[in-house]
């Protein structure tokens, strides 16, 4: 089950999307997210589906890897669609039924919205290396340094967290095997029993994470880490003409969706 974690995964490649500046991609994602929420009617939503599909094809990301990423979100998707399905007033589908046509439409749009949101976010993380991503974030947020927001520290923390996800998953697997060898049972019983069975995993995991953090801090200091001041980067970020085009396209899409919304499409 732990092997399914796709958070922070990156598929190296050499497509246009891979080569875009991470800052452009972050801004584009924000534009897309706003557009997803702005899309009201089916024409707008259809446009967003088309755009996302084109992005997937251009970046050569297989639908399978997107599905894998969607799987952990299944519960939220089902839950929100059910809520919308049962709690929307309107004309019943069949006389006497609680499900209404309006409810059907709303929950379908809701599911679509969540799926598109997640897909677009995955398109960003799948095509951008974590270092480039956090580097881009640091640069985009750098104006906040003026109001004393510790931008470098925050982005460094994010990149460390991403770096240690696979290591911690490996460690969790090891601890689970060790506890199973001692007769622990994680697969049977009710929710409460299963949650309780996780305690003997979480405690050693936390203890070892603290030790790791401590060792990592010493190792970083030994390699002359002293905060973001005076730091250079091996891989410089550079805006290319394609970044400008990508951003213009993104802005045009958002404008288009807003116009469609005005016409109720």
């Amino acid at each position, binding site marked *: 089950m732990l092997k399914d974690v796709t958070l922070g995964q990156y598929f190296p490649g050499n497509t246009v999307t891979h080569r875009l500046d991470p800052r452009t991609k972050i801004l584009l994602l924000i534009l897309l997210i706003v557009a997803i929420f702005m899309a009201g009617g089916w024409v707008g939503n259809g446009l967003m589906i088309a755009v996302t599909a084109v992005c997937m094809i251009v970046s050569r990301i297989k639908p399978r890897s997107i599905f894998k990423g969607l799987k952990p979100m299944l519960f939220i998707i089902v839950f929100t669609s059910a809520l919308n399905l049962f709690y929307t007033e309107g004309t019943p589908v069949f006389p006497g039924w609680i499900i209404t046509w309006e409810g059907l439409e709303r929950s379908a749009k809701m599911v679509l919205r969540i799926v598109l949101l997640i897909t677009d976010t995955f398109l960003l993380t799948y095509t951008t290396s974590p270092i480039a991503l956090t580097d881009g974030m640091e640069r985009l947020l750098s104006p906040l340094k003026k109001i004393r927001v510790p931008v470098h520290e925050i982005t460094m923390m994010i990149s460390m967290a991403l770096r240690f996800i696979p290591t911690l998953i490996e460690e969790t697997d090891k601890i689970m095997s060790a506890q199973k060898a001692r007769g622990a049972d994680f697969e049977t019983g009710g929710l409460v029993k299963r949650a309780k069975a996780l305690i003997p995993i979480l405690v050693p995991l936390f203890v070892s994470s603290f030790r790791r953090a401590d060792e990592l801090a010493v190792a970083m*200091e030994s390699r002359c880490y002293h905060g973001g001041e005076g730091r*250079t980067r091996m891989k410089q970020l550079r805006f290319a003409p394609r970044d400008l085009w990508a951003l213009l396209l993104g802005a045009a899409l958002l404008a288009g969706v807003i116009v469609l919304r005005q016409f109720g499409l």
Partner: protein
Amino acid sequence: MEPIIRFENVHFTYPEGEREILCGIDLEIDEGSFVAVLGHNGSGKSTLAKHMNAILVPTEGRVLVAGLDTADEDKLLELRRTVGMVFQNPDNQIVANVVEDDVAFAPENLGVPPKEIRERVDAALKQVGMYDFRMHAPHLLSGGQKQRVAIAGVIAMQPRVLVLDEPTAMLDPQGRREVVQTVTALCREKGMTVVLITHHMEECIGADRLIVMSNGSIVADGSPQAVFSQVELMEREGLDVPETTRVLHELGLPTDALDPETCAERIAARLR
């Protein structure tokens, strides 16, 4: 020649600890030499290593690295770029998701221009034989490979001294060999001073100098041949000696041969 590292009557006790971990260490390490430090768990060998780049500072006495006092906080950065440190667990010292980004970490911290970082990273990766893996994710490498990446990450800083604190403790025999070969080459080819902390006797054989620690003191110091020939002392410390030395000792022959060939010659000479 001025020694690159000098310990002057160094004592160390942890703030909340009662037992003294280092009890008056006097030690000089020459530039360009390969020094191995052997000792049991709790002998103080790791504590000794941590004094070499000011992770720990002596409670009494002082440590000088290239003329800098490790207690001088203003010189901390200069000191740490002089003495690079590799630790036991490779997972806990790799900071990036891509090998080459990790190796670039130290020069980035030092504010080296991007073009030069690229050159340093490539050179460091080639030196440890990991250049072909530069785009790989570190968590998919073997232990020995990870540790070599960690070494590359330190030498990209271009330190004069490389201190390795039990770098092989978590590795399989294959990984151990890779790491020891890499650091030996660094010393012999690049003239880098290497201090290797270990509890594996066989890793010390290629060193110029072997120091044995026990209970916070240095109990033996000399060439590996000279140290291993003190078989009684090594046994008292619960440390192994190479098989060759043991054979010669049991036979009552002079125990100054470490490699099997010389050992065989000694035995043949006696039989004649």
